[in-house]
């Protein structure tokens, strides 16, 4: 692409909503992965991996998901990798393996989807797979009852390729505009007929891929599929927006945070057996988050004496913080201040994902 063309496209992007901040996808460059870098052992259901990206699995196969740093396209340092460890060569109609990212309504409300003023968008992404041929995916709404299946072609095995798909805005259907789940982008890695539909047209229903798309990634042992540089924008495609790392990190923390290695958090003894710790969050989250505490490796001290914690419970949550209750076996003094330590990585996982 020439520089003149890039500037022309950027000018178009400015008309559509701005030169910066035009990518509606968070962490499209796959740099943020607060939950870890390698994921395996999934049951059926939704599992988040790299920030803002998840997969849904319901099949007889098995696979790993990881944050890749070696096999990446030029200009990128990270990618999401899926590798099949148990093939499902006979995917039933209702089975599927998909990778997806979901947009909050607040992020996409200006698209006006569900109205006659719905804007056209373009999805672009870098993809690489050991499986060549026609692959599929879909755009859908948060209620899983509107879909626009698409296809893309992997021309050469194990080679990065950039794909662009233009999608006319949906003028019907319900598209959340607040803090709820709105637009979602889905890539099918092996999708049965129940969840496949005709590419290139809006339709009702829960569809994750295009009819006729390959199921070869899930159906082939050791098959690989990589994704990065995901961008969804108003109008036509522009170069991927490499925003500052800190900007992406802050965006991602609206949906998922973790607390590591707590040292000296102030504790207040409410009565002779219960103490409370207040944990403020780094930024307001999308909704009241779920909290997963690590129940071992922590300690509680009052006046230099270690207390035995007999029970732990999160008792109140807001998007800005949460209240943790510690019950002790011995008697403590109401009103006394103490301190709480937890040396665990992922001492608290805080989830407000869509």
């Amino acid at each position, binding site marked *: 692409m020439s520089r003149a063309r890039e500037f022309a496209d950027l000018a178009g992007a400015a008309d559509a909503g701005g030169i910066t901040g035009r990518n509606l996808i968070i962490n499209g460059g796959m740099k943020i992965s607060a939950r870890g870098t390698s994921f395996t052992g999934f049951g059926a259901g939704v599992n988040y991996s790299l920030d803002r990206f998840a997969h849904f699995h319901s099949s007889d196969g098995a696979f790993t998901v990881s944050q890749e740093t070696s096999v990446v396209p030029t200009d990128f340092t990270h990618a999401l990798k899926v590798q099949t460890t148990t093939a499902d060569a006979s995917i039933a109609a209702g089975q599927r393996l998909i990778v997806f990212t979901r947009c909050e309504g607040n992020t996409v409300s200006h698209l006006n989807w569900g109205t006659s003023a719905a804007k056209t968008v373009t999805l672009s992404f870098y993809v690489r797979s050991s499986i060549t041929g026609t692959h599929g995916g879909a755009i859908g709404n948060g209620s899983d009852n509107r879909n626009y299946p698409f296809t893309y072609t992997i021309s050469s095995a194990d080679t990065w390729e950039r794909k662009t798909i233009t999608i006319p805005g949906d003028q019907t259907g319900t598209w959340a505009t607040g*803090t709820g789940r709105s637009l979602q982008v889905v890539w099918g890695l092996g999708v049965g007929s129940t969840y496949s539909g005709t590419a290139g047209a809006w339709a009702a229903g829960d569809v994750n891929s295009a009819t006729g798309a390959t199921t070869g990634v899930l159906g082939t042992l050791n098959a690989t599929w990589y994704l990065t540089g995901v961008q969804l924008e108003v109008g036509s495609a522009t170069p991927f927006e490499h925003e500052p790392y800190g900007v992406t990190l802050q965006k991602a923390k609206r949906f998922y945070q973790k607390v590591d290695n707590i040292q000296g958090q102030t504790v207040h003894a409410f009565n002779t057996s219960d103490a409370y710790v207040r944990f403020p969050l780094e930024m307001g989250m999308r909704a*009241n*988050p779920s909290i997963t505490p690590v129940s071992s490796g922590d300690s509680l001290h009052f006046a230099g004496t270690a207390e035995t914690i007999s029970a732990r419970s999160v008792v109140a949550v807001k998007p800005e913080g949460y209240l943790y209750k510690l019950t002790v076996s011995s008697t403590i003094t109401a009103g006394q201040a103490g301190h709480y330590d937890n040396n665990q990585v992922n001492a608290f996982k805080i989830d407000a994902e869509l």
Partner: protein
Amino acid sequence: MNEMNITAAQYVQHDNVNTMVKATIDGTEMHVPLDPANRHYAEIMKQAESGGLTIADAD
């Protein structure tokens, strides 16, 4: 189709009011707020309303 495998759920009280659900979701114990915008709570309620999950009273 269920988005999560929920095998246990119990209300948690604060000042004698139900404020959270302690639930085992996909094998992990989580503390879930009573917020319909929270995906875990939404799924707990969906499975409870379909009869596949019972939320126990608080201790």
